[in-house]
């Protein structure tokens, strides 16, 4: 996972792990805070779709494909990031992997979200190549590398 760009976020939630797990892995509850009306449960290997309910985005159909359901610890899916142009077919484009990782912390639950695989691009390799060319780029790529754990 360290060879691709990734975004990593954490949030401590004051609730038991089982409660946080349901809010993520139950597709109806997931949809409530993610602002999407999902039409079926999450099933490993299967797509789950629904209409976005966020104001201004209601025309957009949302689809993810569940990759892993490991009760109370890990929920993972793939999707097309930014797939919001209804006229465009995204099916041939690479998908990113989104993982929700749960662990107990300080009487609550620490949620870590990792989204990875934006461009299947080994940042250290292009950083090296680009640094030869233009100094400004190296700085930008260092920023990109900061996303890599």
């Amino acid at each position: 996972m360290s060879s691709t760009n990734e975004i990593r976020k954490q949030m401590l939630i004051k609730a038991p792990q089982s409660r946080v797990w349901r809010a993520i892995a139950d597709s109806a509850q997931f949809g409530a805070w993610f602002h999407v009306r999902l039409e079926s449960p999450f099933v490993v290997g299967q797509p789950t779709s629904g209409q976005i309910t966020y104001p201004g985005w209601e025309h957009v159909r949302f689809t993810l494909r569940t990759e892993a359901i490991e009760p109370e610890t890990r929920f993972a899916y793939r999707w097309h990031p930014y797939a919001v142009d209804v006229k465009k077919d995204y099916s041939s484009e690479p998908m990113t992997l989104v993982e929700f990782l749960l662990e107990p912390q300080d009487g609550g639950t620490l949620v870590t979200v990792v989204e990875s695989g934006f461009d299947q691009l080994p940042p250290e390799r292009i950083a090296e190549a680009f640094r030869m060319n233009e100094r400004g780029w190296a700085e930008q790529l260092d920023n990109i590398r900061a996303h890599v754990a």
Partner: protein
Amino acid sequence: MSPDRTAVAARRAQDAAPLFAALGDATRLQLLMRLSASGPESIAQMSEKSAVTRQAITKHLQVLSDAGFVAGERRGREHIWRLRPQRFRDVQAQLDRLSKQWDDALERLRAFVEHEGPP
């Protein structure tokens, strides 16, 4: 987020998908790295030390050009291709925006679990 700002975000998002898609190919990454290391080159120069055919290189350069990572210009009988650094800064900006969207989503998850959702 207000509807206006959401519409702006939607337009930006539409711009982002082809950026990531254009980078999601090994041959295209090699072409970018090559142009980065060598400076502007013609397709003939790029195909010299490559196992990929000129036709394939032309096709990949077109994808990269559509996504704004390279630009071509005619010099005499040849087409010379060069990198456009600004586009890589755009990629970073898109990652930053997506990062911010996750901050917002996690905040909504927290509010949902702690205050709104079923126990």
